[in-house]
């Protein structure tokens, strides 16, 4: 066989390969956050405008520049105003401090940030990524800052080490070094951004967030091969919340605030953070006691419960649903959150019942998802195929056109097989094969469709003759 034929054969087989499965809870979380992102980044109404002549713009610019010079001179004569910082702690434990009007967006998984401008100080726990228009930084157990403007980006490390990807190359800089994207070179530096001096000291004063420090005292070098060996187990990334928890007073000395959601038209942008909250000025010469949290709304409680779920804090999430229940919120999304929490606590019977109630209360895709999860728990965890079958039928999961038709058909066939009702399973297996012919369940479905191998008939012995 020629190498081209070999290539075609492999490509053909690759076209049948299916990705690793996505469990329902993860899929639901992904959809939730995508929808929230869509709502948060909804474009504002644009007003049509006719083309304008450019010279008034130049005049206005010159006037603004003059004013800026005057104001700047004036400000130099006045005492320094308190530095305005934005602090946030992500559910993964990574801490961010924004200064100099930092404009940044969180990745949906909250494992990375896109910095559009300003300065951002990061106390990264595990494989945190920060991208600017000029470079990408990847850091683990590291305190570092990134300053970015239209011209360049500057990365400075205060503890640990940072990998920098720029212009196709990969470089590592360690504590006491600074990387300038304009010169594409690392140099030693002990100076710090003026706006972050105190914040840097605060972060360095705390112990590293993870037990093992990966600080590297070597010189900057290409670490592409090391990356494959030091990459964290990504299965654990599913345990981290995809959104920032903005009410995390335990980690910061001042009240954390969220980042203003900003509309972006860049095709390389990642999703925005949630809607804005107020930023408070923080005097650098004094500590402020954290103020008491205002009474939370049901929406905020729901967001908190979902965040707790995503972080694997199932008991906390269940407690939050009970708190909401005291305020009359029990149905719809609350039912789903409670069911997810019970499932996480391995209280499968309670979880299945709750999912079933949710399926009856909700409609559309949510109802089908809840019904499927209930049927799945009944069959796989509670070993109750009869009830699982009832739930599948009631929730109409495997009806043609259902978003979970494939999953529903697969589960129904397995359930009927477990109940030894193979004849009933056959038409469903046929439907499955017709509509989803290239999945890993094909052999199972085919076995359901094919007639069972006939056992050899026992030979009849003639009856004994009467004497």
């Amino acid at each position, binding site marked *: *066989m020629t*190498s*081209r034929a*070999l*290539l*075609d*054969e*492999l*490509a053909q*087989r*690759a*076209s049948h*390969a*299916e*990705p*690793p499965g*996505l469990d329902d809870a*993860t*899929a639901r979380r*992904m*959809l939730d*956050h*995508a*929808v929230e*992102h*869509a*709502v948060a980044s909804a*474009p504002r109404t644009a007003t049509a405008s006719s083309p304008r002549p450019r010279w008034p713009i130049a005049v206005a610019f010159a006037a603004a520049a003059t004013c800026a010079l005057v104001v700047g001179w004036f400000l130099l004569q006045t005492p320094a105003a308190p530095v305005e910082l934005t602090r946030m702690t992500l559910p993964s434990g990574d801490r961010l401090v924004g200064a100099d009007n930092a404009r940044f967006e969180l*990745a*949906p*998984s909250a*494992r990375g940030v896109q910095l559009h401008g300003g300065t951002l100080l990061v106390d990264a726990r595990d494989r945190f990524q920060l991208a600017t228009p000029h470079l990408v930084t990847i850091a683990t157990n590291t305190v570092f800052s990134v300053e970015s403007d239209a011209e360049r980006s500057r990365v400075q490390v205060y503890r640990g080490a940072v990998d920098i*990807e720029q212009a196709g190359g990969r470089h590592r800089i360690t504590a006491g070094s600074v990387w300038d994207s304009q010169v594409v070179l690392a140099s030693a530096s002990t100076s710090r951004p003026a706006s972050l001096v105190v914040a840097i000291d605060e972060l360095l004063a705390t112990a590293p967030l993870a037990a093992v420090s990966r600080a590297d005292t070597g010189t900057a070098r290409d670490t592409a*091969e090391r*990356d*494959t060996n030091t*990459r964290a187990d990504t299965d654990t*990334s599913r345990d981290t919340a*995809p959104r920032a928890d903005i009410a995390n007073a335990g980690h910061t000395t001042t009240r954390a605030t969220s980042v203003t959601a900003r509309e972006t038209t860049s*095709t*390389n942008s*990642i*999703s925005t953070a949630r809607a804005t909250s107020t930023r408070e000025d923080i005097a650098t010469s004094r500590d402020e006691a954290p103020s008491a949290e205002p009474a939370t709304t049901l*929406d905020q409680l*729901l*967001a908190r419960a979902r965040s707790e779920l995503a972080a694997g804090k199932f008991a906390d999430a269940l407690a939050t649903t009970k708190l909401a229940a005291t305020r009359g919120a029990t149905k*719809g*999304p609350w039912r789903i959150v409670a069911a997810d929490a019970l499932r996480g606590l391995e209280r499968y019977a309670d979880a299945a019942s709750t999912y079933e109630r949710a399926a009856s209360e*909700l*409609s*559309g*895709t*949510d*109802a*089908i998802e809840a019904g499927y999860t209930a049927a799945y728990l009944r069959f796989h965890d509670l070993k109750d195929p009869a009830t699982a079958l009832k739930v599948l039928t009631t929730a*109409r999961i495997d009806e043609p*056109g259902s*978003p979970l038709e494939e999953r529903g058909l697969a589960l129904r066939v397995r359930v009927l097989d477990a109940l030894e009702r193979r004849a009933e399973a056959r038409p469903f297996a046929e439907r499955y094969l017709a509509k989803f012919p290239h999945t*890993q369940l094909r*052999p199972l479905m085919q076995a359901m469709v094919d007639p069972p191998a006939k056992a050899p008939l026992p030979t009849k012995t003639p009856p004994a003759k009467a004497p």
Partner: protein
Amino acid sequence: MTEPARTSREPDVPSDSEAQLALLRAGDPSATRDALRALLPDVRRWLYRLLGRSPDLDDATQDALAEIAAFLPRFEGRSTLRTAAHQITVRVAYRYFGRTTHVPLEAVPDLVAPESTADARVMAREALARLQRCLQRMPPKRRVAFVLCAIEGLSPTEAAHIAGSSSLAMRCRLLQARREVARMLAHDPYLARWLQPESPP
């Protein structure tokens, strides 16, 4: 954020009907969620074929869904929603190229019948893993060209539309990609042995 009031309606698969389009352009959360739900398996499959068994697959899937969701209000219906989603997914995949990932043997799905011997299954998985490693070593644009045309089965014109390039550029990249992969596989004794016909018992 208040959960929108749900209307009782059949859970139909979202299509590009006028009514559905209007809901998506209006940013209706239910319609958006249904559309994303229907697209999720495809998005994940496209990313899997572009990125291989990457630890970033979940992150990339989330990014792609978020970008598709943000795009939906601007969707004008000139192409199908699936095509638009494919374009966005390919664009998202580019951000994840270049992150070299060792493809472990057990991470590759079985591609042979279960009743075949264990040796055959292991060899088939390793062969696919080697193809994925070849693709990871290629420049991103050629990699995309190979995946879209050779694996997804799109014509170069269709692939060019998805990738945002010209047909001519896509044909050139595909040709170069095939040569490069063929060259990398040509002297691989493992793959040659895997594809030899089994000896009779």
